[in-house]
């Protein structure tokens, strides 16, 4: 039907299909209207299409008559939005304001109107310098609004906007409800920073969403694959070890009384972040044991993920490399010696090979199933257990194929989209589908454990013999075992009965099943060879928006696409809408994409869509998925409760003069200090000013300074970052900057120029408030003084710049406070003078009686150093005189023959000599 409606090949049809927004969904309409009528913050469930709602607003304002700024979008997202609008036929497309547009042209861009994606740093500067016509702005759209914390650039922009424009709208969007789960009154603080009064919550369980999506439900087939016994044992072992590690961690850090440290959370991805969140502020006080435990937890989680994600060879390789590292470096926190870890190692090996020794093979459960009669002489006998999911995937594909054969009434064969979590899985799956499990595993095995090729050859020979005999009974390969496992799982009714064909299959007896499997297998393996030949040049290119996909078959189009790790976050969305698959196989489940599929189905009513869910029953993979679901639900429930009890002041939107957040501290501060300072003697109301370098607007400090009521003048400074008074010049360094610039010499030259042009040069060392307030961590001090230590370099710096002061600030907030106090009763800096100071200008401060330029120049010449430089300058009138001096005279002046020779040689060496010397050196 689709083909008749739209002639041309399926892909072409996909490309010319109407854009995503063609059919607005019921609940989207409601979200849109609500937000249109009153400003607010929309929190929507993940994958439920927050981008579609933002897109509708963008389309609305894409006209020269309005000027709308969009904050917090990444370049990839901007591109996606612009693309979508273009295909929608919007004439006045949104533009991006980046540093490519010079400051002079920007005013023009702003006045042309429309929607603008602007870099936050540029917007801040433009608001401060009034380059942007604030009164003309229609409003601001804030994407990813959960990130708007008080000190960030975007909050600063919104504050500046509200101070200058009382009528414009502010609408905020986010789909990250979990982010609001942490911290005290998080959502309220975010809303305060956004200057909005309304909170719109759209969880997946919202009645409107739920009932609407219920109407357009795609056909879902959940296939619970059961893990092999070896995998199960390994999983149990790893979980055991995880548990032990967590207990240890709690024992060593009794302060960590948090429910977040449960086993359920420990297997989830965000766990590292949580634990660092708790431990970072006291990281420098932690013992080595705790640090290595944190590291181990991470490793164990990787192990769990590898277990279900990849094949047995990859897993074994990882496990073996862990053991090797432990041997090589002797670093582990003891879990490698636990009983559970032994069982993990044994089983990991048993999935790949067994040593043909009866005693050992009895240990591993897999080999018990196999009868070991032959090849006693071989040391390693390959088992190469294949992934149960692969088998399930093959079956699903077979089913799709058979259905596609008699699909005339549906309008030809439907396209297939297979989604797996990452690139590596996708590549493996493609190889599996094209070449088969054996070939894939064999290749991997040879790649990782290549030395043992004999075993591999034997294995292949054996397999071939078995195949030619066609004796299903004696097949000891993974396929046979798989069939058994699957059959038994069916008996246990683990498989869900949602799908017709599956239920039919379930009706069959176990033996029939096995036979069918075997037949299917033989069929496949024969067709495999054909397909290998056919698809050898399978690198066919589709005209798809994403380049991350893996094509398999052309007719019907079957492709694999990774869920994560694409450079373009919308790659999968684009592919989904272009390919328009009838069948989607979710090799790995991911919440966002599942929801996206629901929306996709709802936006294309009438088109059949069947989703296959492949998931290991009772595995950590399943648990992870469920945990994510539950977390989001809990987060929404908490938000709903918070919304019910939230007190929102009338003036929150800041449209009148009463919002206290918009009042900058200076005015209120003078009132309070008046009483304190002996009856408020003078208090001349001079507007305080700080000159700030343009590049500094990446940090949050300017925003905080502005908040304190001090005016900011953004200019490009060559010397220093902040000029507080005509005397005080400050160079701000974060810890990583400090280390970097101490090492590469930049700080040294910065200090030279600062102390040359300012009376009070200051180095500000700013610590990250979420990290520990300490320069060196515990136990990192060496026995000897090392010139590589940052403390040593800092010492040397202060020795060479006696006038250089150092400020140590634990956070940007503290810095802003200190700045204000340092400015008290001092005169204001002049931007014109500060800008005029460049390393070039020849202002000679009274302290130095020598020309600094000449001194720099002399110091660069070999043989001249800091000690003899002044002596030399006292003896010669100019550098032209230096050239005329003889070597003897030089050594007399310098008091050192070696230095004199170096200097003399350097001056009188000819270019030709130097070149030839350079060549011989090379």
């Amino acid at each position: 039907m689709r083909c008749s409606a739209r002639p041309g090949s399926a892909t072409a049809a996909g490309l010319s299909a109407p854009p995503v927004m063609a059919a607005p969904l019921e609940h989207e309409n409601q979200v849109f209207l609500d937000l249109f009528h009153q400003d607010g913050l929309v929190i929507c469930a993940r994958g439920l299409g927050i981008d579609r709602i933002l897109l509708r607003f963008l389309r609305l304002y894409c006209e020269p008559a309005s000027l709308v700024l969009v904050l917090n979008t990444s370049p990839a997202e901007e591109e996606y939005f612009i693309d979508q609008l273009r295909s929608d036929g919007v004439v006045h497309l949104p533009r991006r304001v980046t540093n490519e547009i010079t400051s002079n042209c920007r005013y023009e861009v702003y006045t042309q109107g429309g929607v603008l994606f602007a870099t936050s740093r540029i917007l801040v500067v433009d608001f401060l310098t009034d380059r942007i016509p604030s009164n003309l702005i229609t409003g601001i759209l804030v994407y990813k609004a959960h990130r708007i914390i008080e000190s960030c650039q975007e909050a600063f922009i919104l504050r500046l906007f509200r101070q200058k424009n009382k009528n414009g709208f502010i609408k905020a969007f986010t789909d990250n409800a979990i982010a609001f789960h942490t911290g005290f009154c998080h959502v309220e603080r975010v809303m305060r920073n956004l200057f909005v009064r309304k909170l719109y919550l759209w969880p997946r369980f919202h009645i409107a969403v739920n009932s609407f999506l219920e109407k357009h439900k795609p056909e879902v087939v959940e296939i619970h694959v059961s893990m092999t016994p070896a995998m199960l044992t390994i999983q149990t072992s790893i979980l055991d070890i995880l548990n032990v590690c967590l207990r240890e961690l709690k024992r060593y850090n009794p302060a960590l009384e948090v429910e977040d440290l449960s086993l359920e959370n420990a297997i989830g991805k965000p766990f590292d972040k949580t634990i660092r969140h708790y431990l970072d502020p006291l990281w420098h006080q932690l013992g080595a044991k705790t640090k290595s435990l944190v590291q181990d937890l991470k490793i164990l989680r990787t192990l769990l993920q590898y277990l279900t994600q990849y094949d047995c060879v990859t897993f074994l390789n990882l496990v073996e490399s862990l053991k090797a590292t432990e041997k090589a470096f002797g670093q582990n926190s003891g879990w490698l010696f636990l009983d559970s870890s032994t069982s993990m190692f044994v089983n990991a090996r048993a999935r790949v090979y067994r040593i043909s020794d009866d005693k050992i093979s009895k240990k591993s459960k897999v080999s018990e199933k196999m009868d070991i009669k032959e090849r006693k002489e071989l040391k390693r006998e390959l088992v190469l257990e294949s992934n149960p999911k692969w088998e399930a995937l093959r079956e699903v594909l077979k089913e799709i194929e058979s259905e596609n054969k008699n699909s005339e009434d549906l309008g030809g064969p439907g396209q297939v989209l297979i989604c797996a979590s990452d690139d590596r899985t996708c590549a493996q799956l493609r190889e599996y589908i094209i070449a088969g499990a054996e070939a894939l595993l064999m290749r991997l095995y040879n790649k990782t454990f290549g030395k043992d090729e004999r075993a591999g050859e034997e294995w292949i020979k054996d397999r071939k013999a078995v195949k030619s005999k066609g004796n299903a009974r004696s097949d000891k390969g993974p396929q046979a075992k798989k069939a058994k496992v699957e059959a038994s799982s069916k008996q246990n009714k683990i498989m869900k009965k949602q799908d017709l064909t599956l239920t039919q299959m379930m009706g069959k007896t176990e033996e029939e099943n096995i036979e069918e499997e075997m037949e299917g297998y033989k069929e496949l393996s024969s067709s495999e060879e054909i397909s290998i030949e056919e698809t050898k040049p399978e690198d066919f290119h589709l005209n798809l928006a994403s380049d991350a996909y893996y094509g398999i078959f052309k007719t019907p189009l079957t492709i694999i696409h990774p869920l994560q790790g694409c450079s373009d976050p919308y790659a999968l969305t684009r592919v989904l809408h272009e390919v328009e698959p009838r069948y989607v196989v979710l090799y790995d489940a991911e919440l966002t994409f599942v929801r996206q599929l629901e929306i996709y189905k709802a936006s294309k009513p009438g088109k059949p869509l069947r989703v296959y869910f492949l998931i290991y029953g009772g595995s950590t993979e399943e648990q992870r998925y469920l945990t994510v679901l539950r977390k989001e639900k809990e987060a929404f429930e908490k938000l709903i409760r918070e919304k019910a009890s939230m007190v929102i002041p009338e003036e929150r939107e800041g449209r009148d003069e009463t919002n206290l957040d918009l009042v900058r501290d200076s005015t209120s501060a003078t009132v309070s200090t008046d009483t304190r300072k002996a009856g408020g003697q003078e208090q001349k109301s001079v507007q305080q000013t700080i000159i700030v370098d343009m590049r500094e607007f990446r940090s949050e400090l300017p925003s905080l300074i502005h908040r304190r009521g001090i005016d900011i003048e953004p200019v490009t400074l060559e010397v220093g970052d902040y000029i507080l008074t005509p005397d005080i010049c400050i160079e701000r360094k974060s810890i990583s900057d400090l280390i970097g610039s101490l090492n590469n010499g930049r700080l040294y030259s910065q200090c030279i120029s600062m102390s040359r042009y300012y009376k009070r040069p200051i180095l500000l060392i700013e610590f990250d408030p979420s990290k520990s307030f300490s320069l060196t961590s515990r136990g990192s001090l060496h026995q000897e003084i090392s010139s590589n230590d940052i403390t040593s370099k800092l010492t040397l710096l202060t020795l060479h710049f006696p006038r250089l002061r150092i400020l140590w600030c634990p956070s940007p907030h503290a810095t802003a406070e200190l700045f204000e106090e340092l400015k008290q009763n001092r005169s204001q800096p002049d931007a014109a003078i500060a800008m005029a100071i460049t390393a070039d200008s020849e202002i000679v401060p009274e302290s130095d009686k020598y020309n600094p330029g000449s001194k720099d120049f002399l110091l660069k010449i070999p043989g001249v150093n800091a000690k003899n430089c002044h002596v030399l300058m006292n003896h010669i009138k100019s550098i032209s005189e230096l050239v005329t001096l003889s070597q003897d005279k030089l050594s007399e002046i310098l008091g050192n023959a070696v230095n004199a020779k170096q200097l003399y040689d350097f001056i009188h060496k000819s270019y030709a000599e130097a070149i030839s010397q350079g060549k011989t050196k090379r």
Partner: protein
Amino acid sequence: MPVSWPARVTAASSGSREGAVLGELPPGSEASTVPPAASGDSDPCPTLKPGAKSNCIIVSARQRGNPILKFVRNIPWEFGEIVPDYVLGQSTCALFLSLRYHNLNPNYIHERLQLLGKTYAVQVLLVQVDVKDPHQALKELAKMCILADCTLILAWSPEEAGRYLETYKAYEQKPADLLKEKVDQDFLSIVTDCLTSVKSVNKTDALSLLSTFGVSHLLPIRVQTGPCHC
């Protein structure tokens, strides 16, 4: 209590009594009347004036018993009668302050700084951060240091504080090469680096100049851009 770390107050009785005696004397004056108690320096130590040379870190007697001295291992130290707490070189001195002590006696450091005046070129205020919430105190100290021309150095442990003392003494004569940008040691790189220190010359200019003129002809270009004030 003149001692600047609280551990000292609760230390052995003899120690604290001596501290009390010392405290009644203005530091630096009448020092010779106090018998040196440490076993290490049996010879009468000279009253060091700024500018005098010594291979050791000179430690004021009021610092006796300070745990950071245990961590001054790589550099010899001896007691001496000095105004600051430590003399770390001809023109370098340091005052030590523990924040815990500072919170109890906020005026102590004022008096010490006043007494010290501006006698040394580099005057370090070595602060050991040993309280839980140091921010308010640190802010005050930072302002004080700017007014009193002191270099504020923070250490988070006695080890670190001791290491700073050692490093100041050890690096007394060290040139700043360690901090400078690394330049390759072959002739061309040096000449290029040297010539480009003149603002109007870039790297390509330097090379083409060099191929036309020898170094002896090139150097005087400096004269045009700015004469030596010799």
